[in-house]
């Protein structure tokens, strides 16, 4: 996994609540057996005017000129500004894969659905929670200033606005450590092999029917 330390990037505002993972990456693209290449189909049904299917040449498809990510001023954005309960619905990790492949490194929202939030950390994306009023302010500032960019510092747990204003955010210590260092979760967990085996031995005594 790509480590996340500090990132400065352009902000794209997605001004709607309860954006679900079906919207982030529609089901027809979940038929892929790969982990990459979902970016051109991120927000497919909002982003294009036609119906998308796997295998299409997305560069030839008609773009929806009204969809915010298609506006020239938000091209190259790497920080997604969103509203509450972002990423609700299906557990599909294809959603963070699509956002990452599109180019997003961080998301800022007042709240996230639990599974999506967790999946982001596995893919080098930092989901930042800021109070609704702060997020509101950022929506206004993004609208007011073309090229509006933010700096995210994971080590310092701060988002810094172009005006120099800093907003602190919370993140679990262990998640932060792994994201900062881009660590492989499985390799880390396998360091606990003895503890896992000891647990299993105890549990087999207590609940042998789970070990048939």
């Amino acid at each position, binding site marked *: 996994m790509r480590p996340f330390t500090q990132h400065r990037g352009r902000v794209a505002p997605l001004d709607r609540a309860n954006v679900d993972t079906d919207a982030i990456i529609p089901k027809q693209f979940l038929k892929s057996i790969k982990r990459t290449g979902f970016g051109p189909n991120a927000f497919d*049904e909002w982003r294009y005017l036609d119906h998308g299917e796997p295998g299409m040449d997305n560069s030839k498809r008609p773009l929806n000129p009204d969809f915010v990510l298609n506006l020239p001023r938000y091209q190259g954005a790497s920080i997604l500004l969103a509203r509450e309960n972002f990423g609700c619905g299906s557990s599909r990790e294809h959603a963070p894969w699509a956002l990452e492949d599109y180019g997003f490194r961080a998301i800022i929202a007042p709240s996230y*659905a*639990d599974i999506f939030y967790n999946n982001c950390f596995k893919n080098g994306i930092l989901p930042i929670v800021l109070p609704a009023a702060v997020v509101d302010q950022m929506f206004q500032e993004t609208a007011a200033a073309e090229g509006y960019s933010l700096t995210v510092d994971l080590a310092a747990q701060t988002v810094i606005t172009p005006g120099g204003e800093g907003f602190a955010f919370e993140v679990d210590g262990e998640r932060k450590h792994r994201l900062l260092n881009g660590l492989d979760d*499985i390799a880390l967990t396998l360091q*606990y092999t003895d503890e896992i085996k000891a647990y299993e031995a105890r549990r087999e005594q207590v609940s042998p029917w789970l070990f048939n």
Partner: protein
Amino acid sequence: MLRTLYDKLWDAHVVHVEPDGMTLLYIDRQLVHEVTSPQAFEGLRINGRKPWRADTILATPDHNVPTVNRRAGIADPVSRIQVETLDANCRDFGLTEFAMNDPRQGIVHVIGPEQGFTQPGVTLVCGDSHTSTHGAFAALAFGIGTSEVEHVMATQCLWQKKSKVMLVKVDGVLAKGVTAKDIALAIIGRIGTAGGTGHAIEFGGSAIRALSMEGRMTLCNMAIEAGARAGMVAADDKTIDYMRDRPYGPKGEQWQAAVAYWRTLVSDPGARFDALVELNAAEIRPQVTWGTSPEMVAAVDGRVPDPTEAPNAVKKADWERALRYMGLKAHTPISEIALDKVFIGSCTNSRIEDIWEAAEVVRVLAGAGRKVAANVKLALVVPGSGLIKAQAEAEGLDVIFREAGFEWREPGCSMCLAMNADRLEAGERCAATSNRNFEGRQGQGGRTHLVSPAMAAAAAMYGHFVDVREVML
């Protein structure tokens, strides 16, 4: 120390705790389907890893499988590759798979309990958000992403932080024709789709105790639609009776020991919950969603709401967008909404009790001379598993449906998420017993109204929503 059911399940699975509370939790069971697993198997292969305990994994293809003419194989080549990839991965890694033409194949969340693979007291995960279903068995069950699917395969564990616990207490007696689905939608209507975020929900109260295991599965299935990764119901006689003689369940002496343990899987009286929501079962009416989020729901005798009456500006914009997408006007009576398609199925409502409920409505209305209404182009019944399909056929239910004009299909996820050929066309309106009414969920531009199986069956026979309590008098 008084403990909730969640506390007990959690405590029984702790392998290691970090100073910040991040916990290595042991996972007893994993269900696997074709959509969220290929990249996990690929990860194992790249790193030269094997499943820690292959015997704790059960796999089946469900999302992509066709519901007609299955012997001919899967027509869509992309879907076919995904299903064949699951078959190959299960062979290579020595996992048990109920392949597409196995009579036990079905939706993962239906076959787990049916086989006794899902058991009280276990931790169970699957790369699927509706894994909350299995909490109906006093188990800790939740959906995970593909990275975690691989992690559980490789280590038998997951890093988790303890959730808060919400008690949703439903007391009283449900009116005839009101079901677990209506309870679930009423709860979501009350607390919203983010109401349970950060929480595990325990469903309790006399109305929950009165539900069958099928009803409890429906309810726990929809916990994720209330934002809670896990839903659960305490173990009781119904739980234990359901477990009897299941193929993968405990037998002989182990059965006795297991039952003794299962009896402890209840919240201690007086245990503290972080949040409490109470509903009166007698007040719950059949529910119908009108919008593009499960929280956008009304009673069948209600009306489509007016966005100017939304509680705040964000909701007002949401409601306006939803009504535009759904092609509905504020104040329209729910009963005047006409339908193009009807879907009875999904991990929410495709179990035998759901099929019984729908069949009973069809039988009574067909007896009064009705058939599927002319404006309903397609009414599908998709059983949750091959075994449920066989049972329903043995009981003659397929004939009741077919004679009334329904199609009786092979088991799978089908039109809940339209990854196979079953889908809505743009603008089509569907009464569905599934769990999500998101934009495009059942097909791009499709319009979904979530209801119970009885309500869906009645809607098919009338061509619009009707109050099942009235037509079944």
